[in-house]
């Protein structure tokens, strides 16, 4: 940290009035840059969300055109829905485990990949390739790895004397297997993001730290981590948003089972919409999720933006 602050202090602006001009408001330019994106996102992202909000106040089966207005009935029903409560609980547990795990694994691998040794391109490509493998392959492999009778994991456990576990067939373990599966699947993404961010860490800082006698891990802690904080904030927010919307892996492996042990909010609402033909109810569940995601993201932003090391 000291090295960073040192360098910052040494960089005095050429003229303070220039700084004011650059940092002054520029509404025209700002809106000009943002408008194309905002319009497109407004049409394809926000309009559908508004439509779904309306749907959550109606009773709709997606079959008949009549969708009577039922006010907050769907929401009230959600409050008493035991399976929904379970789904919320599982989603929270899942997110709390998945996000930090993926970031930690990602940063370590990214640091390991950020060097010029022979074959590094191949190693890097391998990390990226994990992202390219579709979720169905991920699911198959993990179902095989964790298969109770023949899976590699149980066999390995057997060598150290631990009895075979039921994993995806055990209501108490299934969710954790899904955590492992998705951490693995998203590692490549975290690596890619961190690797890009590592390019912005100036070599001078490490040189200065080395002169001061800081070892490898110390400079990792005091230089790398803080300077990666914008990327970390991005990952924390994006991974949280994705985790809160977990669906594919659950659909492909346990279908929310056994006994709802892996039921998460999006799986639950999909089931309500397309198996139970209750789309209004599903929209209400989606809205609860939406509000929760909004609050969580906002909090992450407020906290993160203050501490993230930006070049302001």
């Amino acid at each position, binding site marked *: 940290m000291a090295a960073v602050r040192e360098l910052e202090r040494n*960089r005095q*602006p*050429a003229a303070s009035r*220039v*700084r004011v*001009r650059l940092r002054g408001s520029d*509404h025209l*330019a*700002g*809106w000009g*840059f*943002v408008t*194309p*994106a905002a319009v497109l*996102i407004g049409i*394809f992202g926000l309009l*559908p*969300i508004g*439509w779904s909000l309306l749907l959550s106040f109606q009773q709709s089966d997606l079959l008949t055109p009549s969708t009577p207005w039922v006010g907050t009935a769907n929401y009230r029903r959600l409050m008493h829905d035991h399976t929904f409560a379970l789904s919320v609980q599982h989603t929270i547990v899942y997110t709390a485990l998945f996000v930090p795990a993926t970031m930690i694994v990602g940063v370590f691998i990214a640091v*390991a990949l950020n*060097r010029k040794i022979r074959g590094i*391109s*191949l190693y890097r*490509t391998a990390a990226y*390739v*994990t*992202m*390219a*493998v*579709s979720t169905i*392959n991920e699911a*198959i*492999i993990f179902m095989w790895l964790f298969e109770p009778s*023949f899976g590699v994991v149980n066999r390995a456990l057997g060598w150290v004397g631990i009895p075979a576990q039921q994993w995806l067939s055990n209501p108490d373990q299934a969710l954790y297997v899904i955590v492992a599966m998705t951490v693995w699947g998203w590692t490549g993404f975290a690596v*890619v993001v961190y690797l*890009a*961010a*590592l*390019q*912005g*860490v100036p*070599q*001078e800082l*490490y040189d200065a730290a080395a002169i001061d006698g800081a*070892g*490898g891990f110390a*400079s990792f802690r005091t230089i*790398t981590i803080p300077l990666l904080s*914008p*990327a970390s*904030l991005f990952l924390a927010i*994006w991974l949280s*948003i994705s985790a809160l919307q977990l*669906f594919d892996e659950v659909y492909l492996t346990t279908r929310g089972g056994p006994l709802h042990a892996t039921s998460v909010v999006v799986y639950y609402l*999909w089931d309500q*919409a397309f198996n139970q033909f209750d789309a209004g109810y*599903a929209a209400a569940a989606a809205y609860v*999720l939406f509000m929760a995601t909004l609050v969580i993201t906002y909090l992450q932003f407020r906290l993160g933006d203050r501490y993230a090391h*930006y*070049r302001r």
Partner: protein
Amino acid sequence: MNADVITTASEAADLPRRSRSRFRPSPWHLVLIPITFVLLVPLLWMLATSLETEAETHRFPPVLVPRSLQWHNYADAWRAAPFGSFLLNSLIVSVLTVISTLVLCSLAGYAFARVRFAGRGLLFIVLMASLMVPFQVTMIPEFLIVKWLGLHVWTQLGIDHLGALIVPNLVTAFGIFFLRQFFLTIPIELEEAARIDGTSRLGVLIKIVLPLSLPALATLAVLTFLDSWNSFLWPLIVVNSEPHMTLPLGLTTFQGSHNTQWSLLMAANVVSLLPMLVVFFAAQRYFVRSVAGTGLKG
């Protein structure tokens, strides 16, 4: 100085003696090889399955090394459906999506990072909100919107046309957020210097910021390409005829209600991966940037 990227001081100390590091393989290989292997397991499994006979794919415990390599699976899979057309459609959709994403997200991301304008904070949150509702809920209204566009604006944007696959994905809040974070790490002094010289905001973005953001841009390009390439549910909903199908839809040719033809499916999957590998490899040299080029001395 050389442009090696180093993250530990000890490695920095080693570096000037290049001749020594040439003979001695880096100890990092010991770490990287096992990690790489773990990460590559599904790909290896896919390859192995694609070269097995259908009977071998049903064996339990699963076969790791096929008895004899069934290369014909690739030809068979290719012939099972017009995969050439699927590939081309996927390419068109993905390439256009990437180009537009890079352009529009750079503009918007820069504005959110460096331009102070009225309503900036609120607009950012509103755009981020578009990421927070699951697709299962928004797909029907999106379908209706795309249908309307096809009827009232331009047929190519409507149901069962490639435009319907591209236009909803021309820009996402994900890309804007991603680039904002990266733009915020560029030293503002460089932009200030250019502004003093009279460069416009757009000029600063194009001449100063973007060249320094190549790793981020390359990363976003790769991530966007990946997302577009693998997109399944939206194309499934929107495409009604084979000539407009993309690769993931083509893969359902091998997935029946009760039975899946694993060897052919994996062969098709491997082929589907190849363009992405090409993109990764091509983007590689942009992922790593010479830190010496940032002009940060002193």
